[in-house]
């Protein structure tokens, strides 16, 4: 049995990208104090909308934009319900996931098996042929590079800008932010929409670039893993990147092990990304001091300005 490490690394990055995008979006949402459990629903909606657009227009760019739009549209429902109508965030997020799964299946009727346009890579093919580093550094779609840039951007904005400071403040204590005159609801709605766009883009990447097909329920829990990654990363952007690649590595590795037909039961390999995610969650949450300090204090709490 032999596993090609370079190919594995390339696969790892591709497998991770959708989860990474969704997770970095959710990180921003949670930093603003909102828990949106609808990531899976937004991702799968992005996947179907992106795929349909890709097939119909032949334009990957439009497909990615449409995927973002799809995710945002769903997140807007969540934003209206939780921020304006003050519904329970856990229940609404679950509803969003259930609705997204149904809606996506409905929108995608007739599309499984269709061929999307090929997405060209931004770097010339010659670069990608350099030994070892070529495929790893230059062999990806533009969205993959964008996802890493997005992590950097989120990190910078949260740590060094006034926008980031206000976002963190709102997530820390909405009463205090309100008392100082910040528009808590408006800020949170914008954060939710950003999260929706990221999840939608991740979904579109999954269907258009990675799988190049539409399959009902194809996200297979990726949205939930994205949510777990945010906890795993203790709400820190770079750790989200690390966590996503770790998860991608396990997912890519188990596929290869299955192909290699070694003696490990298939069920265990199939379940391994989920099992590893659970184990990592346990390790993180048992360290109480660290988890508690970074978690936004107002996470999941309903805000109503009683004036």
């Amino acid at each position, binding site marked *: 049995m032999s596993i090609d490490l370079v190919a594995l690394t390339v696969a790892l990055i591709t497998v991770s990208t959708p989860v990474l995008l969704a997770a970095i979006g959710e990180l921003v949402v949670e930093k603003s104090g909102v828990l949106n459990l609808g990531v899976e629903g937004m991702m799968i909606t992005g996947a179907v909308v992106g795929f349909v657009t890709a097939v119909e227009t032949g334009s990957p760019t439009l497909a990615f934009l449409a995927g973002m739009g799809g995710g945002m549209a769903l997140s807007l429902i969540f934003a209206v319900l939780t921020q304006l109508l003050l519904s329970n965030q856990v229940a609404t997020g679950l509803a969003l996931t259930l609705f997204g799964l149904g809606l996506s299946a409905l929108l995608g009727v007739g599309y499984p098996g269709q061929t999307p346009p090929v997405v060209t890579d931004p770097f010339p093919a010659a670069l990608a042929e350099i030994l070892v580093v070529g495929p790893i550094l230059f062999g990806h779609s533009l969205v993959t590079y964008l996802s890493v840039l997005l992590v950097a951007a989120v990190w910078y904005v949260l740590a060094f800008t006034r926008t980031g*400071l206000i976002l*963190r403040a709102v997530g*820390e*204590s909405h009463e*205090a932010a309100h*008392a100082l005159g910040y528009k808590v609801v408006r800020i949170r709605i914008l954060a939710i929409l950003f999260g929706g766009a990221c999840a939608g883009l991740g979904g579109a990447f999954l269907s258009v670039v990675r799988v190049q097909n539409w399959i009902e329920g194809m996200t297979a829990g990726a949205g939930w893993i994205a949510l777990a990654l945010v906890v795993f990363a203790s709400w820190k952007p770079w750790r989200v990147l690390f966590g996503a690649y770790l998860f991608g590595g396990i997912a890519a590795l188990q596929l290869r092990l299955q192909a290699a037909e070694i003696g490990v039961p298939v069920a265990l390999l199939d379940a391994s990304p989920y099992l590893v995610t659970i184990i990592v969650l346990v390790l993180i949450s048992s360290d109480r*001091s660290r988890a508690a300090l970074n978690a936004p204090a107002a996470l999941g709490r309903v805000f109503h300005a009683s*004036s």
Partner: protein
Amino acid sequence: MSALLEIKGLTKAYPGVVANDDVSFAIQPGEVHALLGENGAGKSTLVKMIYGLVRPDAGTMTLNGADYTPSEPRAARASGVAMVFQHFSLFEALSVAENIALGMEDPPKPRDLAQRIHDVSRTYGLPLDPARLVGDLSAGERQRVEIIRCLLQDPKLLIMDEPTSVLTPQEVEILFHTLRKLSAEGTAILYISHKLEEIRTLCDAATILRLGKVVGECTPREVSAAQMAEMMVGKSLSQPARDEAEPGEVLLTVAGLSMEPASPFGTPLRHVGLEVRAGEVLGIGGVAGNGQDELLAALSGERRSAPGAVEFKGAPIGDTGPEARRKLGLLCAPEERLGHAAAPDMSLTENAVLTGRVRKGLDQNGFVGWGKAKGFAEEIIARFDVRTPGPDVAARALSGGNLQKYVIGREILQDPDVLVVNQPTWGVDASAAAAIRQALLDLAQNGAAVIVISQDLDELLEISDRFCALNEGRLSAPRPARGLSMEEIGLMLGGAHDMHEVEAAQ
């Protein structure tokens, strides 16, 4: 002299209550103006209107001769009005500098801001490190963050909402020093309080509110505290009374109690020891955030300790839960009424079951007897004069004072051997507060031991037999409450440390 801020006919109504009714008064430049009134008199609503958080239904405000209608706090700050809040305006997980930047319109670059914080804190004698997390600061230091945040914007009017409720007597001195300096520089201060002596020392003028209306104005230095109290309350209140009695046997002993905090910014308890005897009231004073909540949790059984750390009538109970302690006769009433002592959305009947189940036999074989529970709720309502339409009303529908009477009444009517209360009269109107204090004294009179944890030193001196101070999770040795001066109490509360810093800064 023309007024800095002139208020005419301000009115604001909420469903079922008129919070402000045709309120008019004026503040002169450089004046320290007191806004005096009981809890619920409408002080908060009034200042929220001045600060742009609430919009009045009717009436006008003029600032420096121009129309003043702030639509949001930002607009108020831009016009030179700043406010120091009593609660709710700091972010624990953010640093001092970040907190200050959030309260400014165009904060300078972080490094310049740190320098300015340093300068202002030196000028006004308010030492503060810009890099520290607010969650790690004491209540007094947190207030400095708010004050400096305001001062950095050169306000013309500074609003202070109950600023001394979280301070030691020494810290109060420092604050007054700062405020006088500001006033001398021409900044007007609107000072909200219900503490009369303070107002007499500090303020140039006072406006008194009762039930949303202006009921009087005075120059505090020229009238007595009693006169102001009568204007504020509308009637004279009787002082709580009790007969002298020799304390009996020791009922509750705490020895060597140490406990790590449950939350990241909580206070650890360090070698706390105390004992209370039948028939006595032990007062525990201290500034907020020095371990009061943690001590109550350790006594109520919400947090467990080594068995011998807490002993009830000689039996170790440190590792037992709240139910077991209640059964023995150790009852508690925590500070936070809504969400801790009572469930906000549950009816008063359901809230009666919350602590009364075991001692009042409100259940049989695990099944709740709702009829009996309702009876108990009605008894509390009747005996403690709780103003409510009936026991089916949700707890959050009650006013602070009424709910507090209900909560304290619920414990007292269970005939405790030891009762521990935290902040029994916090945010409660004067007549309810007097009734609660009297009830606690009566309980002690009848042979129970009572521990009162409070930040209100006047209250503690009024009702305790012995007094000890809680400071950073450590409890001082008790001293007889009678004859204790504010100066001595201040030293017990650990204010001395800060005094040195100020002297060094000046």
